[in-house]
């Protein structure tokens, strides 16, 4: 306890991506009083995101720490930051059209989205538990508000409040876990935990276990693992659809970034946690898939499907090792694209007055929007894991890593689950192509922004599916950065 006088190190360059987002958000908040704020808010937000992405990419070959070890820039962080920025940018483009259609457009939304993204970047770009926690909170607080952004809709209010209460509850577990880990190891820095692991483990192994278990609960809530999933359907259904799209990809990716840092790096030598992850993964994918079968609302179905996907990704944590970790990063990249794409179509259909995004509403879609339906089908195929989409390769890499690691049964259960999921994903395709509609389908007008989102996600889903090796190679390098 004598090291409290340490040197001050300020490395602004390292937090450039985060700062760009924060500044953009601040500019929007400062300009909010002007009448047309919501017009240029999106533009400023996009500029901030692009600047942030450029700054992130320039950090690709950097591997340094700064701010007294609180900030870590490595390829892992860079990759995740890019992923968050892309998800955020696509959401922004999607949201503009949707929010105007629902008459709830407000410039604050862009600021909240940017700051939330910044929180995720903070989470990915550190090895310190305190900073991970703060990043998580900076990410979550705007999300609570965004979930309840449609203040006139009771469902949106419910969504916001539910998410807030459950999120705060989960945070409590996470903090308690961090406190116990600190108690066991006298540090919050994962790198020091790794270097001193044998010493800590002999002294306070139980302590570490309990802390790790509590952190599992906390992050389990955030990524939506069963049995901590009960908030997901209501929150996803109630929130404005672009927000739901964002929820289903970005916080999940951030949660996995933190999980990988903590469990695949910091506590990788703890052992015996693998069984717990095994059970969590099986529960999560099975429960998610089975409940998704019964849904009549597309948003709700996609909510359960996102639980199932979290289950597949948890396989990687059960397996452990660099192969599984890079596979889950690949999976996350693909999942972000096709899940966002799927939600984009739903959001577009929901801009039609009176829509609630039920399955029955999709009837007749193919006649009114043939190309849109084709894209939707592509996303659904990818979600269920058909080749040659990226969804197939995500599962392929993940399960082959599991087989290599000796987790045969886990793989079998995972593959069986995939088959189950085909039913409800293809139901969307079936309804939109073959079901009859009484009367004529009211078309949903496309905007340039939405079109852009659809093109990016569709091209990504297909392109990464055709050339998966390059992406996997990048994911490998990201993992090598710390593992």
């Amino acid at each position: 306890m004598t090291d409290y006088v340490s040197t001050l190190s300020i490395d602004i360059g390292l937090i450039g991506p985060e700062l760009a987002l924060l500044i953009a958000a601040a500019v929007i908040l400062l300009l909010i009083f002007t009448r047309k704020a919501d017009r240029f808010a999106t533009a400023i937000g996009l500029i901030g995101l692009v600047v942030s992405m450029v700054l992130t990419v320039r950090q690709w070959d950097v591997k340094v720490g700064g701010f007294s070890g609180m900030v870590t820039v490595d390829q892992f962080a860079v990759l995740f930051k890019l992923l968050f920025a892309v998800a955020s940018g696509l959401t922004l483009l999607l949201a503009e059209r949707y929010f105007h259609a629902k008459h709830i457009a407000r410039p604050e939304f862009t600021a909240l989205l940017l700051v939330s993204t910044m929180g995720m970047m903070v989470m990915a770009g550190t090895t310190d538990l305190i900073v991970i926690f703060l990043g998580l909170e900076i990410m979550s607080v705007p999300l609570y508000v965004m979930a309840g952004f449609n203040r006139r809709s009771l469902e949106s209010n419910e969504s916001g409040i539910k998410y807030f209460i459950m999120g705060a509850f989960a945070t409590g577990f996470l903090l308690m876990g961090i406190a116990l880990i600190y108690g066991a190891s006298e540090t919050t820095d994962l790198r020091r935990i790794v270097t001193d692991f044998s010493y800590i483990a002999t002294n306070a192994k139980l302590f570490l276990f309990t802390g790790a278990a509590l952190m599992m609960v906390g992050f389990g809530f955030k990524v939506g693992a069963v049995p901590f999933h009960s908030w997901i359907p209501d929150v996803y259904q109630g929130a404005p659809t672009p927000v739901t799209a964002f929820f289903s990809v970005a916080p999940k990716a951030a949660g996995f970034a933190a999980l990988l840092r903590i469990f695949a790096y910091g506590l990788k030598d703890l052992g015996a946690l693998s069984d717990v992850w095994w059970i969590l993964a099986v529960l999560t994918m099975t429960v998610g898939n089975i409940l998704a079968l019964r849904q009549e609302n597309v948003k709700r179905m996609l909510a359960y499907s996102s639980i199932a996907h979290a289950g597949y990704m948890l396989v990687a944590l059960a397996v452990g090792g660099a192969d599984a970790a890079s596979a889950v990063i690949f999976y996350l990249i693909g999942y972000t694209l096709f899940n966002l794409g799927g939600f984009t179509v739903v959001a577009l259909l929901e801009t039609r007055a009176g829509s609630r995004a039920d399955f029955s509403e999709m009837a007749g879609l193919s006649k009114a929007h043939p190309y849109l339906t084709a894209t939707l089908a592509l996303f659904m195929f990818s979600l269920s894991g058909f080749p040659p989409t990226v969804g197939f390769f995500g599962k392929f890499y993940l399960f082959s890593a599991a087989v290599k690691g000796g987790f045969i049964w886990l793989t079998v259960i995972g593959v069986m689950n995939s088959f189950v999921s085909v039913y409800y994903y293809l139901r969307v395709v079936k309804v939109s192509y073959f079901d009859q509609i009484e009367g004529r389908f009211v078309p949903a007008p496309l905007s340039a922004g939405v079109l852009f989102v659809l093109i990016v996600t569709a091209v990504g889903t297909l392109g990464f599916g055709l050339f998966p090796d390059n992406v996997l190679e990048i994911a490998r390098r990201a993992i090598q950065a710390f593992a």
Partner: protein
Amino acid sequence: MTIDAVIFVISAVVAIFGAAMMIAQRNPVASVLYLILSLIAQAVIYVQLGALFVGIMLVIVYAGAIMVLFLFVIMLLNLRGSEELGKPSGRVSRFTKYVITLLFFVELIFVIRGVALPPAPELVTNQPDAFGSVKAVSMLLFTKYLYPFQLTGVLMLIAVVGAVVIARREHPGELPDDTAAESTLAETPKEGTKA
């Protein structure tokens, strides 16, 4: 027992008692009061450990500011008794809750007893540079923990913005939500025309 030990035991018991009663109460005002009691007892423990600044901050920020806001909200909502809070949970669910909590508590006891803690360092209190003094805490806060410290600022800012977004008055340009509007998802074919 030394005086220190006596003070510690008293404040620890009070802190735990307050925390337990806070959960057990069905009257929200009583809950808040027990929480304040628990917080003040915790502050005493901090002070005993030499962390004067943290202890005082606990009182100023939590007991003094946050809890007043809680009370304020409870008073405005005028929650008085249990009736507004819904029915108490069923016997089975209550039983499970207690069992799980108890298990976790026992586990924590074992965990903490199983740890070989290093001997406590000698405490030097009431000196400007001592551990836990304002100077020491702020030295850490503005050097090693500068980044997290600044991040908390961002967190506060966005929380305020979020609260304003949720609670603000209706914007004049905001139109009523159209979810209640009549469903026009499919146009019915007009009579006499071919669909």
